[in-house]
């Protein structure tokens, strides 16, 4: 087990280092004024003193190796730089936005996994029947729809036309709601973005669960359980599902990145104040340091979530769990 975990850990460290290096190199290698990339497009309005200060801060007058060292040191001490457009340290912006993204994607992942697993099981259990075919077609359609468009349509129908749910944001501005009222307000704001996120990310879980369940149902131990006289429901949920979940766990990890990416677009549609929306805002204003920081924080989140999932995996799979315990 430790070998498994350290192997994965190494892989994640490499991913993070690669992404950091990419981030370091991008502004320095792109044609054009690196200052623009480091400080945003406002540099045009800066005095030469201010420019000098930025150059100094990023050590642009040092050798490239020294610059790299400074860059890493900054990141690891939580200094993601300064957003010259928003006139605030980036880390503050991230701290404000991250909880919303975690709320949205966390719930989205849990719900889409549960729904995907359930329907995947049903579909495989009824392989070859109408139910199976209908579920398959439905989920294929879901995965074919562009996420942001689903969001827009939901807003058009449920917010603009029917007026049931709020249009924008994570909670009502200036309302000063407290306690339960605030909670309800937040839930109301969450429903549409969450639905959109679940709709677009549920298909991959469904497909894998269905496929993996089909394989498991062909295994001898399922036949054995049946021969033992175990009831159908128990076979389905205790014997088959448990085994079929193993590949789902792997896909769960892969879909983390996808879901967070999807959240970026969905947060944009709903003006949901998460990191993804922040990334979009920074793209609009060409606030390059902020684009980079949001990218990094999303990557970090994915890697950390992956690693947590790796730690949980051995509980599901005794083969990994018990070895060298």
């Amino acid at each position: 087990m430790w070998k498994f975990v350290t192997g994965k850990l190494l892989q994640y460290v490499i991913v993070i280092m690669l992404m950091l290096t990419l981030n370091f190199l991008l502004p320095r290698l792109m044609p054009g004024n690196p200052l623009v990339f480091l400080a945003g497009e406002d540099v045009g309005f800066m005095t030469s003193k201010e420019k000098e200060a930025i150059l100094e801060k990023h050590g642009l007058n040092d050798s490239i190796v020294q610059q790299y060292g400074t860059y890493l040191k900054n990141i690891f001490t939580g200094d993601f730089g300064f957003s010259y457009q928003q006139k605030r340290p980036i880390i503050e912006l991230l701290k404000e936005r991250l909880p919303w993204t975690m709320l949205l994607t966390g719930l989205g992942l849990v719900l889409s996994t549960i729904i995907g697993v359930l329907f995947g099981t049903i579909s495989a259990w009824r392989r070859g029947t109408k139910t199976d075919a209908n579920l398959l077609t439905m989920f294929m359609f879901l995965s074919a729809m562009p996420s942001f468009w689903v969001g827009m349509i939901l807003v058009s129908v449920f917010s603009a036309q029917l007026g049931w749910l709020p249009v924008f944001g994570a909670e009502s501005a200036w309302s000063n709601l407290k306690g339960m009222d605030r909670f309800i307000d937040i839930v109301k704001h969450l429903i549409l973005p969450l639905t959109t996120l679940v709709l677009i990310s549920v298909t991959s879980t469904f497909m894998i669960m269905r496929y993996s369940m089909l394989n498991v149902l062909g295994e001898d131990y399922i036949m054995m359980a049946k021969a033992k006289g175990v009831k159908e429901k128990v076979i389905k949920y205790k014997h088959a599902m448990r085994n079929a979940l193993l590949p789902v766990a792997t896909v769960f990890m892969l879909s983390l990145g996808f879901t967070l990416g999807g959240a970026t677009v969905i947060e944009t549609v709903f003006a949901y104040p998460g990191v993804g929306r922040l990334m979009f805002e920074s793209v609009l204003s060409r606030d390059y340091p902020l684009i980079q920081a949001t990218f990094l924080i999303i990557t970090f989140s994915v890697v950390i979530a992956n690693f947590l999932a790796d730690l949980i995996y051995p509980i599901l799979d005794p083969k990994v769990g018990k070895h060298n315990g």
Partner: protein
Amino acid sequence: MSTVLSVENLSTFFKTDKGIAKAVENVSFSVDEGEMLGLIGESGCGKTTVAQSILRLIEYPGKVVAGSVYLNGKNLLKATDSDLTGLRWREISVIPQSAMNALNPVYTVGDQIIEAILLHDNVNKKEAVERTKKLLELVGIDGERWKSYPHEFSGGMKQRVAIAMALACNPKLVISDESTTGLDVLTQAQVISLIKNLQKKMNLSVILISHDLPMVTSICDRIAIMYAGNLVEWASTEEILKNAEHPYSKALLNATPDLSNPEREVTSIPGSVPNLVNIPTCCRFHTRCPYAFDRCRQETPEFKEIKPGHYVACFLEEEQNG
């Protein structure tokens, strides 16, 4: 001696892309109390299909299309689902073809044996654990290992676990479907003698499916020989060894014994098994039979008793006797 299981005119077909595969057709035999019956035949001849039909485990695209299976007088093929739940494991259990894969990898072996016990016998968890430990000891595994996962056992040990599991609820009849496939020769011998000893000790009826004729003749009371979906001969071991009638049985017996590779004998008959999809009416052995004549290509010989307790499906005997 009373009959425990009797199979009558059993036919099980599979739907395939190319047509209907008549995997088992018109098979009849029976097993007595405390008897060990050997069911033998080449790979693909339908042994597993017979076993699964008896156990009611045939699933789409397969279907039992005709026949009846009486277990202590009760027709299994007509039993309701709740009847079956009561019968399974208490009356009839199976040691499957690949015991390696018959254990669920995510549960401990103990849990899987206990599951069967709790399902069928009115005992509490603690008693079930005790019985599980005893069962494991019975098949030569340390009882304390009930908490181990399947992957922590060797192939031979998993096989023993499967045997222990089959015995969990004191069944009357155990079907052992080539339970030694994939094991080395020494372990095979150990597992087989274990089955034999347990059978004697517990007065079990056993159907021992195999393609190893010498092994079967050495431990079974009666032998049923299958070819391409049909039963071709069924008699006591002694009778088969001395007076085998069917050309296929004779060919099996005459093939040179080769102790290091027992499977060779079965495959060393020239020619190959016919395709069972859309097979026409005929004696299915005629393509390889040295005695085949016209009638063999047009009619299916009846499986009938030529001497008390000796059944054969071949036209030769009929021709010779009139």
